[in-house]
């Protein structure tokens, strides 16, 4: 067991974890952050995407021990004082989700994309979301949501 100290969604946690434990399992099983989900185990689908120190990371692709001393933000930590993040709002407004399973990862990746490029073209949005799979929406409305959030941020 290895001792780690992590800040997740603004709260500090200290835990002993197995060195092989993945960050996503730590979030889900130890912290109850079940908003972040596992979709593929091979880092293809991006459903588990969170932010580590403000950058998107597939949390199935990172060990919990690697998060020691870092700050993790999940989809559960986005809304501030009951106010949804603009990207969350845009996903709702544009019907950018159906079953919602890819949504946490898709929202986290979209935020990262917009942090890098506040005014992306459609092609840049599509390329930027290439690491996140959605089976329901055909991406059409997800792209629209990112465009909407970008426009709203201006």
């Amino acid at each position, binding site marked *: 067991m290895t001792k780690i100290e992590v800040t997740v969604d603004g709260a500090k946690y200290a835990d002993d974890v197995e060195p092989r434990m993945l960050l996503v399992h730590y979030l889900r099983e130890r912290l109850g952050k079940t908003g972040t*989900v596992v*979709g593929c185990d091979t880092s*293809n689908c991006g459903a588990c995407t969170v932010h580590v120190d403000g950058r998107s990371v597939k949390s199935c692709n990172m060990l919990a021990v690697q998060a020691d001393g870092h700050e993790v933000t999940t989809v*559960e930590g986005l809304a501030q004082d009951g106010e949804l993040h603009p990207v969350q709002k845009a996903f709702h407004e544009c019907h950018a*989700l159906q*079953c*919602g399973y890819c949504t946490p990862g898709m929202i986290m990746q979209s935020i990262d994309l917009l942090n890098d490029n506040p005014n992306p073209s459609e092609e840049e949005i599509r390329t930027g979301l290439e690491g996140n*799979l959605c089976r*329901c929406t*055909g991406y059409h409305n997800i792209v629209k949501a990112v465009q909407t959030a970008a426009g709203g941020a201006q």
Partner: protein
Amino acid sequence: MTATQERTSSGEVGRDRRRKEDQRLITGRTRWTDNIQLPGMLHLAMVRSPFAHARITSIDTSEAKAATNVVAVLTGEDVKDEQGSLPNAWPITPDQKAPPHPSIAVDRVAFAGEIVAVVVARSAAEARDAAELVDVDYEELPAALDLKDAANDTTLAHPDLGTNKSAFWKFDSAEAGTGGNVDEAIEKARGDGIVIEREYRQQRLIPAFMEPRSVVVDPTGEQITVWSATQIPHILRFLMAAVLGVSEAKIRVIAPDVGGGFGGKLQTTPEEWATFMAARRLGKPCKYTETRSESLMAGHHGRDQWQKLTLSATKDGTVTGLKVELLADMGAYISLVGGGVPVLGAFMFNAIYKFPAYQFNCQTVLTNKTWTDAYRGAGRPEATFAIERLMDELAVELGVDPLEVREKNWIKHEEFPFITVCGLEYDSGNYEAATAKAKEMFGYDELRAEQQRRRDSGDPVQLGIGVSTFTEMCGLAPSRVLGSLDYGAGGWEHASVRMLPTGKVEVITGASAHGQGHETAWSQIVADRLGVAFEDVEVLHGDTQIAHKGLDTYGSRSLVVGGEALVKAADKVVEKAKPIAAHLLEASADDLEFSGGKFSVKGTDKGMAIGEVALATFAAHNLPDGVEPSLDSDATYDPVNFSFPHGTHLCAVEIDTETGGVKMRKYVCVDDIGNIVNPLIVSGQVHGGLVQGIAQALFEEAVHDEAGTLVSASFVDYLVPTAADTISFDTAHTTSPSLTNTLGTKGVGEAGTIASTPAVVNAVVDAIRHFGVDDVQMPCTPARIWKAIHAHDQGGGTPTPGDAAPHFDEQDVADRTAGADDTAGGAQ
């Protein structure tokens, strides 16, 4: 240009309401089955067969049992007297051959991925570690893998059955009295008309829902509670009880938030059975969540047919007959719907056309591959693909535009209702209107002109235009029809409306949403029907103790069947409230009218809101004599007909003839799905459906190697399209309200998937037809397209010279060249 943002009526129905479901989903406040943690919960891991067909000669579980925190290891031998056989609800013929389907294999495995042992431990990681310690000895048996070989019984998938042929199912319009004799029509056309003969391949696909399947079974209460990532909580409950010998009343099934299904969760699974048996034996809550590889390998697959087609026509292009001969790969076992999937397509090969003679023959075949069942569209995409590809081929034969030959043969709008050559009555539709609108949005004539220019100039990038004018039968289904087809259940749906004393309304539906947005759409329907606020309606579903009755969600049935049940239940509430309102208003019930949520006495200003009636009914202080103190109402609705949405889809692709690369340029679809409850939700269903159909055309295929191992068993190899692979779509609607339900709605869940595949393949073939190409096998990969282009020249036979690819080493080049040979399937 999506028709989503406008409000098309003054009420809730037709309004693009944002979804009620979203709030929890965008904030991560979700209840996926895998989120559930219960005190003392144990976790399962499966030991799966690496062989497609083998005898199990011994299983040594001792080391696994001794591993840290392992509680039990179960083998097929341990549970053989209790596990029964996983059910097939649709034996399509009385003599259908179906091998017994144990959840845990006992002495033989019939596909790679089949469960041979189950390890139960205190954590999922410990269970998986110990699964590695289970030592299974196999004696490998020859595996039946190729569908055509299997149909010839070359190798037997189940030697005890003596054949791989499961069932032969036939429909003949002459025998049924619904049309003429197809063989005579074909014979005549061979003499003085046109005969088009083709063979098409429907490759094997994987539903690939995003949420891996998960099941939790808690045996610690009076009822055994089962949470499952399923589309069918009610059917699961019934069948678990029937097979496992537990009273149905002692099983409660909950489908909590379910992350997509697309038919892939329309199943009773070995994993559910194994988890149930483990929990029952151990008396502890048990959970199993699959990995993605397990999901792709052992969750049921879809499609997988060879289609032999013969179309006859007169010289002017009037189709006189269609004969269909299918081979359908069932995989290793006959699944829940099993052979019924191709049968669902049997009545759709004639599509929107007035064919006078038709015959459908289907042989279902057992192989040693993953079992197949419903995948979005289930039978109807296959049918639509076949006929829409054939109509293009007929157009080429005639030298006319593909839309022209379709129009010549389709049912004109004034001919509805129309009884087809299969005996189905299409209630409404207008193919002319949808096509005209689609052509205009697409810029059809301009694109045709551009295509000609590129052809004339020998542009290395060629343009192809694909057409698909589809219809489908959905809204499953009239129970009598299902009965006549030997399906094991009915096709009704149930709804309840509960009037709470505060004026809020609880709606209970037997449909079981897993992304469709029922909570929103059902609220809109009830808000209009009862004149209450959208926000005041709460929709409950997916728990057999709350929604006690239902037949769940698949086959684009929820709105057209479940929505009608809801309308009827809501109308009953009004009927029950009326005498109470009359009594309280001191008026005659005959003098009351109900509108906008209010009972009014005609010709007066006296009135009472339905919420007030609900409160008065709750108090029950002053009710008319003999009236029960409840407005709550139920309705169970059995549809009178299928639902027949239709539409015209147009697709333009650019093909780089030097590389075989495909780029989608434009996709327009105009779908007629009757009246629309929520245009925003509809747009989402259409977009998502389109991409799944496009994925079949261009990207996805479940590939087994020569040993029967699924090699596309991760998202690295099974190519679910990404945002970067797809484009934005131009969608719109025409409206011919359905005549068979009150709201005039038609199903939309599967439409995009059914329509888009042939539109894309027609576009691909259209782009390169001048190279002598008349087919490219799906998925139309760059390699297949390139080979099709070069099938008639030396290009395909010349290996890439080493110096043309200096960045590859020699071995690499050899591998690639060999690989390219395996993907043949181009021009015929």
